[in-house]
């Protein structure tokens, strides 16, 4: 197995184990930390996939902003670090069955990837992704409208979030 392959294996395992722990830990704060670990794992996999810019953005936005915001929310909404017994909600058996079904379905679907186009172009790292991404985002022939809509969306979220969480 080449170096890249073993790297992939390591990071995949880290990501999956951390994700599993996020969903099963009792302590909220620990769950947040495992989430950060999962997000790091995903960022590492982005690097393996030659998406360097996205890996950096993943760390800055997801970990640096979103996960931190979650930690804030945990701090704001926990009165006492209460191990209040059950962590699974009342429908957990049905939910687990549903999850199992979903997983089987998804694996079947994913297996189809191999069928059609496995000719992976040998990306030698000469692809200047950031520049291409930048041009795509502001070119009227490409993604400028979604770009502007994203700005409006952020403004709306900002106004809404401040309004709802402000003290009278």
């Amino acid at each position, binding site marked *: 197995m080449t170096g*890249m392959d073993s790297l*992939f294996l390591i990071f995949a395992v880290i*990501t*999956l184990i951390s*994700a599993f722990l*996020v*969903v099963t830990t009792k302590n909220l704060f620990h*769950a947040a930390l495992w*989430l950060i670990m*999962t997000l790091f794992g*995903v960022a590492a*996999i*982005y690097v*393996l*996939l030659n*998406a360097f*810019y*996205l890996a950096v953005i*993943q760390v800055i*936005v*997801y970990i640096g*902003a*979103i996960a931190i*915001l*979650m930690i804030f*929310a*945990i701090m*704001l*909404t926990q009165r006492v670090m209460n191990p209040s017994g059950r*962590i699974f*909600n*009342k*429908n957990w058996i049905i*939910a687990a069955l*549903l*999850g199992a079904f979903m*997983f089987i379905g*998804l694996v079947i*679907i*994913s*297996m189809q*990837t191999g069928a059609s186009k*496995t000719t*992976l*172009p040998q*990306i030698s790292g000469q*692809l200047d*992704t950031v520049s291409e*991404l930048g041009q*795509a*985002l502001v070119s009227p022939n490409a993604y400028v409208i*979604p770009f502007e809509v*994203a700005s409006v*969306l952020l403004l*709306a*979220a900002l106004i*809404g*979030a*401040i309004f*709802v969480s402000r003290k009278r």
Partner: protein
Amino acid sequence: MIPTTYYIVLSALLFTIGALGVLIRRNAIIIFMAIELMLNAANLAFVAFTRMYGIIDGQVFVFFVMTVAAAEVAVGLALIVAIFRTKHNIDIDQLNNLKG
């Protein structure tokens, strides 16, 4: 070279773990974290497919999904804080003022 299928299976596993988290846990913030896992799984699939095809569209999509995820987190956590203020509890089994 790792075939794309492995990445997709990884993303499927991540997605399922996230979905399980949403369906099984009681605390609203954990449910929200699980939703973030699902979004990350979709992002992973996008990036893997982008490398497969060599066109930039998938990465642009991921860029926008991250933006939306950030906005969603802001709104979601604001709503969670608002609920906590009125009920002092964010356990979803206890959210039953609206019957059903």
